[in-house]
């Protein structure tokens, strides 16, 4: 007698395919967002954020957390949307994907390690070549039939003069002592590499989960789970 396939098994397969589809779409969307970010296309970058969510957020380096639709739109327009300059370059790349899609397939948690290079224009001389490596951790949410960035945290890892390297040049690791952005709230984590820093395995690799509760996985220090 031919094997009967239970409805539960069929539903499990459908669910697995949906999760795989989400896995691929999240990587494509983040890749597109990264390209737009590197090319200074603020409006395109914003297209990949979940601007239908009141608590959408972006945290980067030690500039703080920009939480809420207005704060995210404002900071991306200010930072990414600034007028491009001759000789300027940012080239962040996505590698080492670690992604979990929730069992309910409504959200996902993702982490990439991002090697990067850049060039900063300087007055009356050649642009300064820099290394800028970091990690991107993000919650995604399925919004309007698409996977959108819900909470994103860019963890700066190194930012240094190419000629000097990451040990000799720590001058760009932390923000200048200028007024913090009025729309930012305090950073949750900032521990870039320096000769005196201690690595902590953060951001952490996301773990399988049923339904989203919070973003604490990004800064989870307990590696036993």
């Amino acid at each position, binding site marked *: 007698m*031919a*094997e*009967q*396939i239970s409805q539960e*098994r*069929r539903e499990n*397969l*459908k669910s*697995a*395919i*949906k*999760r*795989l*589809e989400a*896995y*691929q*779409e999240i990587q494509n969307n983040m890749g597109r967002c990264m390209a737009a970010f590197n090319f200074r296309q603020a409006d395109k970058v914003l297209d990949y954020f979940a601007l239908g969510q009141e608590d959408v957020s972006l945290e980067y380096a030690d500039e703080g957390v920009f939480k809420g639709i207005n704060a995210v739109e404002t900071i991306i327009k200010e930072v990414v949307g600034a007028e491009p300059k001759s000789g300027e370059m940012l080239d962040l790349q996505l*590698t*080492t*994907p*670690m*992604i*979990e899609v929730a069992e309910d397939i409504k959200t996902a948690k993702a*982490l990439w*390690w*991002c*090697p990067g290079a850049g060039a900063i224009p300087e007055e009356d001389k050649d642009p300064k070549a820099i290394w800028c*490596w970091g990690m991107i951790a993000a919650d995604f949410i399925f919004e309007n039939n698409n996977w959108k960035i819900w909470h994103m945290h860019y963890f700066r*890892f*190194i930012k240094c003069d190419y000629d000097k*390297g*990451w*040990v*000799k040049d720590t001058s760009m690791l932390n923000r200048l002592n200028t007024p913090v952005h009025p729309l930012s709230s305090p950073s949750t984590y900032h521990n870039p*590499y*320096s*000769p*005196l*820093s*201690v*690595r*902590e*395995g953060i951001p*952490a*690799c*996301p773990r399988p989960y049923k339904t989203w509760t919070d973003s604490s996985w990004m800064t989870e220090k*307990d*590696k*036993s*789970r």
Partner: protein
Amino acid sequence: MDIDLNVIDELDAEEFTEMECAVEKLLSVWEIKNLRGAAAIFHDDQHIGQKRRELQAVKHPSVDVKGLMDFRRKAVVDNLEGNMLIHPLTTPVIEVNADCTVARGVWWSLGIEGLSKFREEPMAIISLGMVPGTHIKEDGEWRILSGAWQRTTKNEYKKGWVRDMQPTNTRPPLTPEQDRNFLGKYAYMKDEVRKPSPEPPHKDTFDKFPEETDNIWLYINLKK
């Protein structure tokens, strides 16, 4: 992608099982990428003895668990400050066997390091290499059965990879010969033709090399 999942309800048992197996393979590749990412994170921070979930297969008869645990407890630097090992994973090639119990993979990596052995100012290092490995399922999760970092370069940043090759940092330190027979076996040498190893796994890897502990698939390009 917009897949009509209703077709799954129409599949007969054979078709369904075939699709289920194909999906299971894709899920396995995903899980193994996550596993290797977690291993890269754990490798970076070097906190000896810190409790962490096991990523290595420890129940397989081929694994020397005591040796593995002893190795993990050995400090190779005095201090954590200034030390880091960031080996991003790129260029993944992963093959999973028919019943999704064994997977082979090779990644390439362009990484950076900071090395301070005795609290001296760290050395900035460019570190290129490969991550070959075999993976099996243990307690329902994919784990690493075998495979160690294979160095291509490990050079002081300013000197570059032609002029400098740092050995793997061990205590006591390795001689150049020992290093050459360890993780530096296939490392770049300015006066040698590069050896094409490891070979990424091919689709027929499990037909040609069915034993899960057989790592010869990595070295098929090497002349005897």
